[in-house]
C-alpha cells in the first residue's frame, strides 16, 4: 500500500488530500472538505490526466499555430507527447478545429488546431 499526498485544485481552498493506494486501486481519500475533492483525489492519485496546449511552426509563415489535445491525456505520456509535438511542422491552410496529428504518443488522442491560418 502507498500513500499519495495531493492538493485539491478544484477550488481555492486547496485542501491537502491523503490518498491510500494499493495495486492501482484507491482505498481511501482523506482531507477533503467536499465530494469534489474525493473525486479529484481518486483520479489524480492513480490516473492523472492533463490537457496539453502547444504551439507549432507553420511552413512559410512567421506566426505559429496554437494546438491542443482533443481530450486530456495521461500525465505519464506527457514527455513523449511533448517530444512528438516539438518535431511537428504544419502546412497551411489550416482551419480551427482541424486535426493536425492523430494518435499523439499512442494515446489514441488527436491534436487539433485552436485557430485558423491561411
Amino acid at each position, binding site marked *: 500500500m502507498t500513500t499519495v499526498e495531493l492538493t485539491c485544485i478544484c477550488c481555492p*481552498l486547496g485542501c491537502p488530500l491523503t490518498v491510500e493506494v494499493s495495486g492501482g486501486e484507491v482505498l481511501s481519500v482523506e482531507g477533503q472538505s467536499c465530494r469534489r475533492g474525493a473525486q479529484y483525489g481518486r483520479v489524480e492519485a492513480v490516473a492523472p490526466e492533463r490537457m496539453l*496546449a502547444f504551439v507549432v511552426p507553420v511552413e512559410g509563415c512567421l506566426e505559429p499555430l*496554437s494546438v491542443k489535445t482533443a481530450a486530456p491525456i495521461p*500525465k505519464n505520456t506527457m514527455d513523449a507527447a511533448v517530444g512528438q509535438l516539438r518535431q511537428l511542422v504544419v502546412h*497551411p491552410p489550416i482551419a*480551427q478545429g482541424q486535426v493536425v496529428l492523430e494518435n499523439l504518443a499512442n494515446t489514441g488522442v488527436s491534436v487539433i488546431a485552436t*485557430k485558423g491560418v*491561411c
Partner: protein
Amino acid sequence: MADESALSAEGALSEGLQAASSGPLNYDVVVIGGGAAGLAAARAAADEGARVALVDREPSQGGILRQCVHNGFGLHRFAEELTGPEYAAREIAALADGSAVDVFPVATVLAVEAGPVKRVSVASPLGALTLCAPAVVLATGSKERSQGALNLSGSRPSGVFSAGTAQNFMNLQGCLPGKRVVVLGSGDIGLIMARRMTLQGAEVLGVYELMDTPSGLRRNIVQCLDDFGIPLHLSRTVTRLEGEGRLEAVWISQVDSATRKPIPGTEQRVECDTLLLSVGLLPENKLAKAAGAQLSPITGGAVVDQRMETSLPGVFACGNALHIHDLVDFASAEGEVAGREAARAALAVVASGALSGLPSLPDGAREARGAQPVSSSDAVGSLGLSAGLASGGTSRSSRVSFVPAVPGEGVRYVVPQRLGDDAFDGGPVKLSLRVSGSFRNGRIVVEALMPGDEIVPLKRKPFMVAVPAEMVQLEVPMSEAWGCNEIRVRVEEA
C-alpha cells in the same frame, strides 16, 4: 498572417477612406478595444439597435486571448473549457452574425474628446480618422507592471521581459525568448509562462515570490509548476541583475515577511539568460485619463456606476480597462452591460433630437444617418454643443444623484463605485469585488446605511475561502436600499 476568423469590415474601411477626406464618421456607439470585453460590448450595443464601430489597434480582434493558447476559458459563458483563441473566435463569429458593427482593424485610438458628441481620433493605415458618437465604450484592456516598478540595482542587460511580452513572442511570433529562465512573481501569467517555456524546451530554474503566499491560482501552481518540477520560492526577490549586453545572472535575496525588505547577507547568484516579470496587471487608462474621467486610485480604472458609465456622461468602461479580471467570462459579461447601456444612452440622445434638431428618426433612417459622413463643421454646428441640450438629452448622469458603494472591512474594492437612482428601482445589481486578504469560512455582507444610522442588510453570501486572486461577484437586490446614504460591502469572519 491574418487569422481567418478575424473581422475586417471592407465596408468600414472604404467608408473610412471616404471619411478621411470628407470628415468624421458618425455612429451611435464607438467601442474602443476588440478584446473579450469590447467584442461583447459591440454585440450588445448592436442588439439594442445601435450603429456601432469597433476599433482595435491589432490586425485581428480577441485582445489578450489571442496569445493565451492554454486551456481554461469560458467555463461560465460556454459551459466548456476553451483555449484563448477558441474563445475569441466564438465571440468574433457571434459579432459577425448579422449584427451591424463596422470593425476597424489596425486602428489606434489616440484620443477621446468628451462632450455631448464624443470625437474619437484614430490613426490607421488609411490616415487619420475621426469617429463621432454620443456614446463611447472604453475596453482597452490592461498593461503590465514593468521593471520600473521594481527596485533593481546593477546593469540593465537585455533578456528581461514582462511575462505577457514573452507570451506574445512565443505564441504569436514563434520565438523562444531564452534558454535558462527565472520568473519573478507568482502571478498566473508567470506560472503559465513557466510551463509554456518548459514545454517549448527552455529550462525554468524557479519562480520567486516576494510575498509569503503565491499570488496565482492553486490550479496553476499544481499544473504549471509541480507537474514540471519547477520550484516555487516564497519570500524572495531579485535584487541585482548581472551581465553586459545579455543577462548572465540574477541575484536573489530573502525577504523579511514583515517589512518586505531584502535581508542583507542572504543574496544568492542564479545563472540565467532570461528574467520574466510577472508582477501584475494594471488597467490601460490613458484614454480615460486624458478625456478627464474620474479614476479610482485602488483599481486604477475609471469610477463607474451600475451602468458602467464613467464620470463623463456617455463614456462607459468595462473589462480589464476598468478593473483587472481573472476570468474572461466576467469581462465579457461586463462588456455586455456597458455596450447595452451605451446604446440605450446614445439612442435616447438621438431620439430626443438633441443632436440634430430633428424629431426622433425612425430606425431605418438612423442607419442611413450613421453611415453618412458629416463634415466637421456640421458636426459641431448641428450636434448641439450648447449646455442646455447637453443636460437635456445626453445622459441621465447629469441629473441623477449617486450613492457610493464602498469597501468595508476585509474588502479592497467594489465595482461599481457608485449607484445611480435607477439602481434602486429595478432588478438586482451586480457588484464585483476583491477581498484584501485570505479568509476562511466567513461571509460577504452587503448593507445599506440609511439616514438616521439605520443599517439594512441586503445580502449575505457565505464562503469557505476568499482570496485576493479571485474576484467575487454578487447579485444584490437594492429595492430596500432606496434613499440610503451609502452601500457598504464587508467581510464577516466566522
